[in-house]
């Protein structure tokens, strides 16, 4: 603005420069009118958005078997799981493997709540997030002490029965009585 003012004062006569100065004042008034536009809120609230009726009916296809069973109180406050109890067990060895690393600790398993099937999408759903939680302890007495401290009911599940066999290398080559002679097989069973 200063540059414009200086140039106009040098080149043009004095009377015209006064008229230009008055128009700049009017321009400032125009900016003042532009500032009044900023008083409008640019972030509209959610109540002003139009909502379709179809959007409210999304969840109606869910079929819950028993809604009362889905409610679980928090176990951290020392409250029961609606009378359900917790299982304390030591996991057994996987029969597909020979390693025994996962069988050395005792696990507290929270009650398994039923799930419901979403017919539209085909998956199984659950309201509970505690299904994935398994607490591990070094001994059975530690797990029992934890349950008593918090106030949980607990069941101690029996361990699997494992017995040791007497083994010798020569047992591999024992006579089993199958090589006497090939007999005629009967037809009729299997």
């Amino acid at each position, binding site marked *: 603005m200063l540059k414009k003012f200086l140039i106009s004062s040098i080149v043009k006569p004095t009377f015209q420069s006064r008229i230009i100065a008055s128009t700049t004042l009017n321009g400032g008034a125009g900016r003042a009118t532009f500032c009044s536009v900023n008083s409008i809120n640019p972030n509209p609230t959610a109540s002003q958005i139009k909502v379709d009726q179809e959007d409210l009916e999304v969840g109606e296809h869910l*079929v819950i*078997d028993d809604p009362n069973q889905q409610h679980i109180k928090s176990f951290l406050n020392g409250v029961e799981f609606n009378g*359900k*109890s917790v299982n304390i067990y030591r*996991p*057994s*060895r*996987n*029969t*597909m*493997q*020979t*390693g*025994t*690393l996962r069988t050395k600790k005792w696990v507290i398993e929270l*009650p*398994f709540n*039923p*799930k419901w*099937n979403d*017919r539209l999408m085909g*998956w*199984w759903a659950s309201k509970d997030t505690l299904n994935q939680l398994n607490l591990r302890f070094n001994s059975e007495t530690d797990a029992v002490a934890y349950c008593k401290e918090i106030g949980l009911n607990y069941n101690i*599940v029996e361990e*699997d*029965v*494992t*017995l*040791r*066999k*007497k*083994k*010798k*290398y020569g*047992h*591999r080559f*024992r*006579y*089993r*009585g*199958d090589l*006497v002679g090939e007999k*005629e*097989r*009967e*037809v*009729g*069973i*299997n």
Partner: protein
Amino acid sequence: MIIRFKINEIECEVNEEKEDITILQACTANGIEIPRFCYHEKLTIAGNCRMCLVYVTNEEKLLAACGIPLDENFDDESIETEIDEILKAREGVMEFLLINHPLDCPICDQGGECDLQEQTLAYGLDTGRFYIKKRAVEIKTFGRLIKGIMTRCIHCTRCVRFLTEIAGVNELGVLGRGYNMEIGTYKKNVMIESELSGNIIDLCPVGALTSAVYAYKGRPWELKNIKGIDIFDTLLTPINYQVKGGEIFRILPRINDRINEEWITDKVRFHYESYKIIEKIRKETPSYKIQANKFIELTWKTALKMVFKVLLNKKNKVDLIIGSKINSTNLRIYKELMNRLGSKNYITENGLMFKKFNYDLRENYINSNDLYNVDKNDLVLLCGINLRVESPLLNIKLRNVNFGDDEIESVKKIGIIGNKFDWKHESEYIGATLNSMLKLFEGRLPYCQQIKKSKAPLIIVGPSLLTRISLTLQEMRAIFMKACNLKPENILIITQGANFGMALEEGLFKEKFSIGGNVLYSIDSNEVQVTNKINYVIYQGIINDKFENKIDLYLPSKHYFEDFEGDREVYMNTFGQRSEIEKLSISKGNKIKENSMIGYIQLMYLNNKEMTRKEKEQKDIKLSYREMKKEEKRKIKVNKYLTINNIIENYYMTDINIRLSKNLMITGQLRKEKKIMEAGIWKNRKCI
């Protein structure tokens, strides 16, 4: 002599005379884990993988821990399992194994539970040095149930040892030598004919033998274990359902050395795909038939009103038949319901075949024989049972000559009364008619002298014999005990169905039952024949393929593993051993209710009327067949020349859950056709 030694600086001692123990067993007893591929706790020792080498002081070489017993040579020695020399040896073993092993880990079904993966991570190298050529073996087929990608095989021979030693079929073997070594069958496309062939899937430490039904379905870290039982076997062996969401993905055995060690039958292992089919087919609401193929859907209130009208009508005579999978709580409820109605015609499905019962004494129906000691009997007499088909896991116990003391003879004496069957064992065939049984009762068989001489005899009585002789279980035991000088632990009576012992425990049976009423109320029993005398059929169950056309009123209920309140339920087998099952809910419909809930509602409705059944007096025990024959000549009618035909014709057709499994059905049909083909070939040989 007491041997004192050290394992990794842990002092141990073993009494040599009392215990037979190897180095590997001593290490596992002390919590030290030695890697292995060929060794298995339930099989014999092979020692060909050389992975379990240990260092013993004063020995020049490393020793294989699985095959060397701890004897007096190990006194004052020390054993090391993790020194550098051993780690270098294991590294070499892994390098040799991985020369020809394909890099199939992303697509293999064994991924996540593979022994080769884990031991390579612990002991193997990170790169290979052999880039010239990898050997490939063709894909072999062992039937419909087992998929054999034998390129992955590391030749540990566990599957060969299982099928020859335990299952009793000699169909897998080692072919070729050295670089050309393969494990397979001599002929191509041979199906493994064993009722336990699925166990080699568990035994294989790599993915060479995997389940064809479970192929490309899931990963083991996604699956959750839920305890169950084998409902098709009277031993009720413990199993694990592996579940993801609400769907059963596979079934694995649970270790119990008293009952099944580690094995389960193919029936229970592969039958789980029928549950998905049932959930698609079945009706989910109570329905009533109007015309031949038209049903109205009802509400539960309307349906139960119709049931009450039928039950309370005095003109109707109601027969209640309970299926063989129902648990003991439901047995108690429906017994009480029929007692309130004043009716006595209620029985389980597996009790229909018997003619007489006596349920007063518990020792008559609970076998006092412990299953763990069955393999120590030196003489076994099979009466009217095809043991391979009717109880395959007990068959394994009897065949077990792999372990044990050397003083006992390695081959048992086995006598058979009944039809011949494919036993694959030395056996003496006595007779097929009831006449030989009567001679046995009177002690006139020459085989009775062998029974008296033996130290540990065992007599196994099957269900097909009990259907043809009108004796109670109590009388049957008493006659055997007197004729052959036996104890109660020497007699083993095998029944059919899961809840036979529990039904006797609840006092469910009475002496005579016949379907003579005009109304049939069936609770999840599929194997009953509906005659023309029955006007009205109420079926309360899941699905029915035998008399589906004759059902008038259908009430939907749940499967046996979700048919109880609470988290767990207890079943009991005929040895008195109890197994727990956990709740597994796979039913999707809202209107499918438990059998116990339906029974409770009916009991609450009938709460005004109270009628109790009078308990019968206890009968005296009659000790000999001759005395019984004099007193009750008219009652006992036995046809001497009647043969004891085995009931089960096809192993894979005994239950609806197995009939709906596609792979098990095709396996059963292929075995039938193979028998006919072999018979034809055999006849042609005689002509030549």
